[in-house]
């Protein structure tokens, strides 16, 4: 794609994104008009979500910058592309488990890597493997016991690959 067309596409995407944000702000305003209590609760919750997402987003945008600077399509296709093999699956599962912050904070980086050649199946696997949250395991043990936590963790790893395979079969 030539640079001019890419810039126009980016501008169009940005415009649509801002329109979406204005639309949501409108919904918020209408809710505040008819139900101030709900809007106020939502605002508090939004503030708390925002404080959680900002550090994760900052990390993600640093990673995007580094990916734009150092990652080459050839490298990405080899390690996370359609022909990356077992190494690609293992890398996607491992990165998914180790990734921190909310799910939506990772969309920009994954979108960027997908555009550079990361396979949809591995994107799906990464997103699924995020269900296994290492810092929350002690809490899960507290609520449901060791046996359940170990079983669920092993199932998440297995199902994350299964999810990737299904996405590859259906979407690709």
């Amino acid at each position, binding site marked *: 794609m030539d640079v001019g067309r890419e810039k126009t596409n980016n501008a169009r995407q*940005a415009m*649509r994104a801002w329109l979406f944000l204005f639309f949501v702000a409108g919904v918020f305003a209408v809710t505040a008009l008819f139900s101030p209590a709900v809007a106020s609760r939502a605002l508090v919750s939004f503030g708390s979500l925002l404080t959680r997402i900002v550090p994760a987003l900052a990390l993600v*945008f640093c990673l995007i910058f580094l990916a734009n600077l150092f990652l080459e399509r050839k490298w990405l296709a080899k390690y996370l592309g359609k022909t990356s093999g077992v190494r690609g699956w293992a890398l996607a599962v491992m990165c998914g488990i180790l990734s921190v912050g909310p*799910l939506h904070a990772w*969309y*920009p980086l994954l979108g960027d890597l997908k555009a550079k050649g990361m396979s949809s199946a591995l994107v799906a696997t990464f997103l699924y493997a*995020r269900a296994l*949250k290492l810092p929350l395991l002690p809490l899960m043990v507290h609520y449901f016991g060791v046996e359940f936590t170990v079983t669920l963790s092993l*199932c998440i790893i297995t*199902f994350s690959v299964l999810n990737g395979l299904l996405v590859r079969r259906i979407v690709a």
Partner: protein
Amino acid sequence: MEWRSKARQAASKTLATLAYTVPIVLGVLALASLLAAAVPPRVLSELLPMESALGPLFGAVLGSVAAGHPVTSYVLAGELNAAGASLATTTALIISWVTVGIIHLPAEAAILGTRFAIWRNAICFVLAIAMGCAVTFLMSLGP
């Protein structure tokens, strides 16, 4: 010199990504907060028959529409378990909470593609129920 130009190009690409992803993520966060304030997951769980045979399905539905920290899903699942919901139901709830995102769907579709987002969420929804059954089966094999 060449390195500096490469860095400038990388920064410009990153800013372009930032310009269209940040408003989407903020919009989705605001929608999620609004929905959670209007219909809290706890209220939704009281409306759905979680103890019935279709519990895993309802657990997955609740987890899919809910938004918030995964810790909330553990607390809610613990309460449902104590109230008589099956292990399959609570597992489906916990898993769909983190893998399916109906509220995040617009952001996922805009950034990763509509077809990918819809199919990924649909597959994850079915897998959440399947995992509920798988975990229950595996736990029944234990001592």
